């Protein structure tokens, strides 16, 4: 009996991995099947943003940040992963009603799929960022090995919020719209196109309560300055993310019994 349940569990894990892979694969295939530009499409958006922002903040309102293009692109990529994931997560339940109604379908996987799909887009853009680093003459240091840890923290943080917005959108169908406003404000309150240091000292502690500040700063330290990110900040953020994830997941599970009815 012990044996079989152990085997069943192993099959269950293989199954969940395969399901995740198929659902992510479906999203990515669909995105690229519809456009002639293919993979390049996921790069056009950040590159266009990059062009506009770097023009404005190098020429119109010079910020005098060294290697500004690379600096900006780091922030943009990290922010875009966060923003597109949350945006997609609002539809994770509502747009998959036939999967929700399918007997035995593990509904909790859907927000993971949206965050993971956007993580893949993020990874696909990463080589361009590395190219910018090399062009800018910034050497790749061994601190880059700490990057995966930041990925994990950002993944968990984004996922925890995804469970909240996915659940909320089932009850209130304007969540996506309101989220857009919140994210727009969040964009300016995060150091995407400016430096964390630009915030006056008295407000620094308050400012760093925004998890995206910690994350974007960590990426920049690793990639641009060859420093290790602030371990304490990241640890605190990990704990907060884990707590939020637990809470978001609980709420999601509780609400999921109603999903099939509410759709």
């Amino acid at each position: 009996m012990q044996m079989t349940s152990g085997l069943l569990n192993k099959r269950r894990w293989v199954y969940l991995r395969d399901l995740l892979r198929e659902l992510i694969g479906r999203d990515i295939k669909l995105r690229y099947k519809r456009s002639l530009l293919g993979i390049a499409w996921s790069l056009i958006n950040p590159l266009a943003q990059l062009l506009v922002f770097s023009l404005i903040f190098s020429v119109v309102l010079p910020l005098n940040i060294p290697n500004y293009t690379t600096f900006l692109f780091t922030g943009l990529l990290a922010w875009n992963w966060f923003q597109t994931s949350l945006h997609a997560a609002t539809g994770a339940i509502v747009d998959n009603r036939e999967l929700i109604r399918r007997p035995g379908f593990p509904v909790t996987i859907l927000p993971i799929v949206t965050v993971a799909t956007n993580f893949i887009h993020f990874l696909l853009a990463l080589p361009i960022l590395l190219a910018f680093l090399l062009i800018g003459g910034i050497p790749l240091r061994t601190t880059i090995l700490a990057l995966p840890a930041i990925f994990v923290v950002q993944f968990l943080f984004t996922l925890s919020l995804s469970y909240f917005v996915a659940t909320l959108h089932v009850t209130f169908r304007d969540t996506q719209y309101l989220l857009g406003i919140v994210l727009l404000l969040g964009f300016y309150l995060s150091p995407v196109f400016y430096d964390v240091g630009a915030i006056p000292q008295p407000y620094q502690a308050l400012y760093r309560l925004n998890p995206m500040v910690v994350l974007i700063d960590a990426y920049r330290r690793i990639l641009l300055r060859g420093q290790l990110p602030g371990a304490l900040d990241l640890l605190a953020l990990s704990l907060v993310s884990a707590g939020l994830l637990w809470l978001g997941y609980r709420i999601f599970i509780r609400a999921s019994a109603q999903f099939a009815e509410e759709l």
Partner: protein
Amino acid sequence: MDAPIRVEGLGKRFRRYSKDRPWTLQEAALRGFRGLQAEDYFWALKDVSFDVPAGKMTGLVGRNGAGKSTLLSLVGGVGQPTEGRIHTHGQIGALIDLGAGFHPDLTGRENIFINGVISGLTRAEVARRFDSIVAFSELAGFIDSPYRTFSTGMRMRLAFSVAVHTDPDILLIDEVLAVGDMAFQRKCLERVDEFKGQGCAILLVSHDPNLVGELCDQALWLNEGHVVANGPAQAVAQQYAMKMQNETQRRTPASRAPVALANGGELRVNQNRFGSLEMEIDQVRLLNAERQPVERMQSGEALSVEMQYTLPAGLPAPIFGVSISREEGEVCFEASTAASGAQSPGSPGKGQVTLHIQRLDLVGGDYFVEIGAYKPDWSYAYDYHWHAYPLSVEPHLNEKGVLKPPQRWEWRAAPEDDTWEFEPKQSRA
């Protein structure tokens, strides 16, 4: 051993929200978060208990809204029971909403993988079964074309093939068997039968009592969430069919001006015409191969039954049915648009529907062609003409039996060495 499906005292209560329940945060905030609570509750299921042992098939019959699909979903683990318990053992497979999860822009091959995995198989398991899935669907030539280029029939075949290639211990089937062409339907039924033989517990939802009576071991008749009857499938299906007859009689108007028929007869309500008459079948003609009206025909000839009807706006497209029965009432042949998967256009106004029977191989005798139009959930007839269209099949030879298919007799003499062979000899001695 425990039954794979066991349902004990199951109840499911749904919430009913007020019509102006806010669906946006904005509205909800403006109204101080009032109106978010359900204003009313209703029980979709109440006190439902039954089990389905391994290798058995249970049918669920009842009208639309009786709670059949809710019960099926709950057994599948979608949603939570409000009271009572559902125990299930093993992998659950479902033939519900078959096209769901297929994406038009992906190829047949890609869709098979995604759907196989969504249905509970690992990638390796799908890969192992891939050839068999394609073979079963008979779509080998199209498997790398986008799904959107498939016809409806092809889509059903693909969806069904994936679904029957999972190894369920429990199979939930919702009314899907009636779709697709006859040959494929047969194949699917055989496959379902195989599952049963392998010990799979099957729960089938249908509003067609005939199908349930034919396929299932046990049946459960639900009405407004309550179990009306639970027992051997044949008996329950018959009870349910009777109920439908009573419902039709109850809804038949007390009086209505008689209608003259093309064959000289007359339609009179409560004599040879029953039904709610929400829609009417105005004229019926029995036609031969040359499209001439007939009342007599030779056995084995073609027969067409043409019905002209008036469908008022707002009424859903009905199911049309034709049966041929003996004077004593024995039904020799039955067909319906629902059973054949024929979609009626459903546009209001006058319309005409014709059933073409290529050969009517009945033995000679006197028959009646009964025709009817039914509510889409079969709960009662809109218009049913009983014993209004006589049909005489020639020749009258007082043969027993029902069928008279093309036939011949063959005589052979015993060979000289007195040994019989089953195959005729190729060379003549």
